Each structure stands twice: as structure tokens, then as C-alpha cells.
């Protein structure tokens, strides 16, 4: 009898451990188009948030980020920046003469929870718009809810492209504003042999599919493609493979905590930034603090904004952020994207003269804003924004030195229609 109990106990432990590991593993920065997109519940149709409440003296908006669970590591700072923007707008008189009232919900790093909370914000709180999401999985989970209830979501993180929902505005970069120009720059400046390293889920796999097509078209070479599970902690074998393949460039789409392990162990293996170029798309100022600058110095990253970006708006933004949340906090690309999302929404509402979703969407086309990263413009067709592309090198103080910047903000092209080699990627 007792034996049976024990064997079942062992099984239960293993199952639980795996569930836990699943949670841990999801600390993906971006991407992760999970299989968890829930079908929106068909009842409640039509009680939507269109024309959301303008009653009273306030306009309600929702903020929906993971404030607990593994994604809290990244999303809490974005929430802080969005709150700061709302406070600033309120201090300056609000939107349409009304104060903005915030309803904060916790997505808890769990994709169905994101969908459920989005529904709650739209139906119960009747918010005018929602700022939120980080992983593509959370976005994909919320998307059907926003489309069904005709809500409005502002999504602040770079992602894998190939999407353009009429109910979402994307203030982070799409692939042609980050990955594609980064590969171009590397081919020109660092070499042709690419080693693609990523976490094993949709964002890196989609990104690498695009990179491979691009390399093939422009004379580069993919020497190897490696994926590790999310939350992988030991990179000694991957580093052996890198040593064997002798690439010019490691294009790193690892996500979350795996970056820490990879870079620490890369340094221990005696490989520094002088020996090997790595370019990351998910390592920003905030991550650098957690990895350690001594480990990361000299490595590259591609973003649209750095804390060191030299604009008067950014000086003000960084000072205000540090004043609000502490001198030791740093700003980074997604934090800035969350911040400008609030301002862009407010500008669109002012222009439309109402918070009605359809009218705001129409009014948003062409809105310009002097963001910390420089001037950004909403592209009405794709609902993404024009952004400059920056390649930066990590300095000893944990900040980036910009090595390369596009002259003008790049037009968003989520489906990569402007690139011949990319034809066919979207259908797959």
C-alpha cells in the first residue's frame, strides 16, 4: 500500500516540477506565440467598449502587464513608465480636459489570464484603451478579445512581425526596424558567417527564418542554427559548438535569463567581444544590469532607443524616470515604447475629440510625437510607428554607445513587403 502511495507521489512531483519548469521557461522577452490563444467566450457579445465611457470628469484607461510571475522581471518597468506618462499628462491638464484614471491589472505571466483581464478591463471597467503585454503569446491571447469587443491595445515591445491587427497599435519595432537592418550592418562591418542562437519558441524561430532568407539573398552564410529551451542554464556545449563553427557573428535571439548564463559562460570560456561579435535583440540596459557589465562590455545590441540617445526629450525622460523610481533605475527600449504609447494615444484622442475606438484609430494616422528616441510617426496603414534603428555597443558603465544609426526613422513593414527575398515568408 505504502509503496503505491510513494510511486504516485513521485509521479505527482515530476508532473508538478514540469509545470513549474514550464512557468519558469516562459520568461521570454518577446515572441512566444503560444498555443494558448483562448477562444473568446461567445456570450457577452456586443457589450463592447466602443465609445468607452466619457462620463464624469475622468477617462479610464487600463494597464495590463505581468506584475507577478516570471515576466514581472521585464514588465514592471514598462508599467512604471506608462504610469509616469499618465501622471505627466494629468499634471498638464489631462486629455480632452479630463483627468486620466488608471485601472491596473496583473496578467501574472499567464496568457489566458491576459485574455481574461483584457475582457474585464473592456467590459467591466469600460476603459477607453489598454496599454499592455510583453510576450507575443500574451498579445496573441489578448488579440481576439480586443477584436471581438472592438477595444484598443497599445503593445510596447519589439516582436517578430507578420501581424497587423486593426485593434492593436505596435509601438515597438517590427523586424524591418530591428533585425533586418542589424543583419545588413553586420554583413557590411563584421563578416559573413553567422551563427544563429535562440531560445526555442516562435519569436527566435521566426526571426531566424527571416535572417536565413536575408543571408541567402545577400551573400552571407548561416554556419549553424541552435535553439535552447527557455530558461536553459548551461551553455558550455553551445559554446563548444561555436568554437567549432568559427563564425564571424553570433546573432543572439536568446530570451530572458538564458542571456545571463550564455554571456557569463562565454566569458569564462575565454571568448571576449574582441574575439567574436555577438549581436543581441533582447538585451537592453535593464538586462545588462542583471548580467553584469564586466561580462557584456563590447558586445552589440540592436534597438531603437538607448538611455544614452542624445535628444532633449530623452534627457527629460531619463531624469523624470529616475526621479520617480530611484536613481539606480535605467530606461530601455521597451520602457520608452510604453511611455510614448501613452502620449501617442493621448494625441490621437485629442485629434479625434473623443475616445471612441474607431475615431481614435482614424485620427491616429500620421500623428507625430517628439519621443525620447527622436521623432516618431504613426503609420495608419500598419498601425506601427516609424522608428530609427540603432546598433549599440555595451560600455563599461552598462550604457550603450551608438555605433550606427539610420538617418531617418524607418517605415514599418511588418510583412516585409519591401524585400524581395522575404516573399513567401509571411505565408508559412
Amino acid at each position, binding site marked *: 500500500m*505504502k*509503496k503505491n*502511495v*510513494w*510511486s504516485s*507521489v*513521485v509521479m*505527482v*512531483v*515530476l508532473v*508538478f*516540477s*514540469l509545470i*513549474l*519548469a514550464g*512557468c*519558469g521557461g516562459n*520568461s521570454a522577452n518577446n515572441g512566444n506565440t503560444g498555443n494558448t490563444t483562448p477562444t473568446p467566450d461567445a456570450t457577452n457579445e456586443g457589450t463592447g467598449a466602443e465609445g468607452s465611457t466619457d462620463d464624469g470628469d475622468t477617462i479610464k484607461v487600463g494597464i495590463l502587464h505581468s506584475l*507577478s*510571475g*516570471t515576466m*514581472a*522581471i*521585464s514588465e*514592471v*518597468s514598462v508599467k512604471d513608465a506608462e504610469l509616469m506618462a499618465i501622471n505627466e499628462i494629468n499634471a498638464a491638464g489631462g486629455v480632452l480636459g479630463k483627468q486620466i484614471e488608471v485601472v491596473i491589472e496583473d496578467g501574472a505571466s499567464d496568457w489566458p489570464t491576459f485574455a481574461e483581464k483584457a475582457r474585464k478591463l473592456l467590459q467591466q471597467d469600460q476603459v477607453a484603451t489598454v496599454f499592455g503585454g510583453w510576450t507575443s503569446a500574451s498579445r496573441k491571447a489578448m488579440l481576439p478579445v480586443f477584436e471581438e469587443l472592438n477595444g484598443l491595445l497599445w503593445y510596447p515591445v519589439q516582436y517578430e512581425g507578420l501581424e497587423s491587427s486593426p485593434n492593436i497599435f505596435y509601438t515597438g519595432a517590427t523586424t524591418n526596424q530591428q533585425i533586418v537592418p542589424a543583419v545588413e550592418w553586420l554583413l557590411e562591418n563584421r563578416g559573413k558567417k553567422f551563427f544563429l542562437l535562440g531560445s*526555442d519558441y516562435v519569436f527566435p524561430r521566426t526571426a531566424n527564418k527571416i535572417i536565413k532568407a536575408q543571408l541567402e539573398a545577400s551573400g552571407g552564410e548561416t554556419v549553424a542554427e*541552435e*535553439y*535552447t*529551451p527557455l*530558461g*536553459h*542554464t*548551461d551553455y*558550455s*556545449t*553551445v559554446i*563548444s*559548438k561555436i*568554437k*567549432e563553427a568559427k563564425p564571424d557573428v553570433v546573432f543572439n535571439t536568446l530570451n530572458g*535569463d538564458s*542571456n*545571463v*548564463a550564455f554571456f*557569463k*559562460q562565454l*566569458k*569564462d*570560456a*575565454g571568448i571576449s567581444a574582441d574575439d567574436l561579435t555577438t549581436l543581441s535583440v533582447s538585451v537592453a540596459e*535593464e*538586462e545588462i*544590469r*542583471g*548580467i*553584469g*557589465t*564586466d561580462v557584456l562590455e563590447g558586445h552589440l545590441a540592436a534597438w531603437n532607443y538607448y538611455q544614452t540617445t542624445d535628444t532633449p526629450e530623452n534627457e527629460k525622460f531619463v531624469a523624470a524616470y529616475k526621479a520617480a523610481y530611484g536613481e539606480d533605475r535605467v530606461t530601455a527600449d521597451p520602457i520608452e515604447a510604453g511611455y510614448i504609447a501613452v502620449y501617442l494615444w493621448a494625441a490621437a484622442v485629442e485629434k479625434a475629440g473623443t475616445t471612441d475606438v474607431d475615431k481614435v484609430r482614424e485620427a491616429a494616422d500620421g500623428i507625430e510625437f517628439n519621443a525620447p528616441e527622436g521623432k516618431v510617426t504613426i503609420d495608419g496603414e500598419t498601425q506601427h510607428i516609424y522608428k530609427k534603428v540603432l546598433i549599440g555597443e555595451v560600455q563599461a558603465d552598462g550604457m550603450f554607445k551608438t555605433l550606427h544609426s539610420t538617418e531617418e526613422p524607418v517605415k514599418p513593414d511588418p510583412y516585409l513587403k519591401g524585400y524581395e527575398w522575404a516573399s513567401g515568408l509571411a505565408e508559412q
Partner: protein
Amino acid sequence: MEVQLLQLFNGISVSSILLLIALGLAITFGLMNVINMAHGEFIMIGAYSTYVTQLFFTSNIPADYFGYYFVLAILVSFAVAFIFGFVLEISLIRFLYGRPLDSLLATWGVGLVLQQLARSIFGAPNVAVQAPAWLNGGLEVMDGIILPYKRLFIIALVAVVLLAMYLFIYRSNAGRRMRAVMQNREMAACLGISTRRVDSMTFAIGSGIAGIAGCAITLLGSIGPSLGTYYIVDAFMVVVLGGVGKLIGSVFGALGIGVTGTFFEYWTNASIGKVLVFIVIIAFLQWKPKGLVTMRTRSLD
């Protein structure tokens, strides 16, 4: 050939890390049969203790001595995790002996609480621990093969911890009492051993060793509130494969998983490698459900 040698070293290194994170669990789960899902969080506590020790050194101690902080951090990590384990045992675990499913759920909840506690105290983002200078770099044994000092250090640390545990459990009076209680609680109690005290000390020691593991892990990986969740599965795997109840089993379990896992990963890739390791483990447990090293006692039947 060189790569194969390097991979062998990598395999042993991975095994040493696995063993270190599993040793504490080998005591709390293996010897005491408490399914401690908060084990990963004790590792996390150890890692944050190292971080705090580092902060203390950078602000209070002359920079010349900074290199020694890590030695102190190992002791601090052990002590802090020990205290947390002790408090957890007397406040919760002792009510749950013999109720494995309840303790599974309760400790999982404790784990979540500890994670959120860390998030509230240290903030959600990862923190960085700077390795002391004497652990940077590596030993170049031949051309192209560099053995990082950190990994050599962890292998040595595991050896020391194992030796200390062996001496404690098999050569000291306290260890003898501990074994007596684990083997036959009633008889030990009849002979005048305070089983309550032995229980809480044993659990605290297991937790403390998890703290040491957390300290060592700061050299290789991330330090964040959810760091424990990355290691908990591996820790249980090692103990279950090695055989519940025998410390030496965990050594073989860790070596088996670490070395085969590293080579599978080298031949395929990290995801497939992990799947293959799991398949081998499951197949093995079908054949020998009690793991590599079977304990012959009456208490488990």
C-alpha cells in the same frame, strides 16, 4: 578529439552543478521524504545572500579584500538558507510529515511566497553578482581547451560539501542520531533521541546546502526571483534517478544526467538533448523504479 575531451569536462561540470543543487534535496526529500517544492527558492535565497554579501563588501570593506567576499558568501548563503529552512520546518513542515501530497502543495505555495518576497525586496529585474578576480579566466590544458576556473571551483566545492556531509552523517554523533530517526523513528525516540529537534536540524541542513548551491550558481547564471524554478526539475530528477534515500545515489544520478545530457546536446541540440535524457530516465525508471542505488530498509515498505 579535443572537442570530445572538452565535452567530457563540460559533462562533469554540469554534473557537479546538478549534484550541488540536488544534494540539499537528497536530504529533505531523500532522507526525510518531504516533497519540498520550495527547494528552488532556497537556492534563490542563497543566490541573493551572495548578492547582499557583495553589496556589503563593496560599501564597507576596503577594495583590497573584495576578492575574499565569495568565501564568506558561501557561509552566509548557508546560514541564511539554514535559518529559513529551520523556520519553515518548525512553522509548517512538521505538521505535514506523512502527508506527502499536502506538503507538496504547501511547499509549492511557500515557494511562490518566497519568490514574491524576493521580488518585493530586490525588485523584479535580475541583479548582477561580480565574480571575484581569482575565479575569472581558465586553465589552458592544451591548445583550444580552456577549463574555466569557476567550473573547476564548483567541482571542488561539490567535493568538499560531499565530504563534509559524509563526515557529518556517518561519522558524527548528530549524524548517527539523524540516521537513526530516519530509519526507525519510534525506536530512536524510545532510546531518548529528540526526534523533533533532529527533524528540524536535518531539514535546515538540507536547506542550507541548497543555499550553498545558490551561491555557486551566481557564478554561472542569472540571479532573479524565479531562478529556483529553472533548477527544481533537475534537482528532483537527480534524486529520483539516483534512488530516494541514498546520498551516493544522487552522485551517480547527477553524473548520469550531466554527462549523457551534455553529449546528447552536442550530437543533436539542446531541446532534443533534453528530451532524449528524459526518455532515457523514464525508460530506466521503468526497469528500476527505485533508481540507481536501492536502499535496503524496512521503513520504505
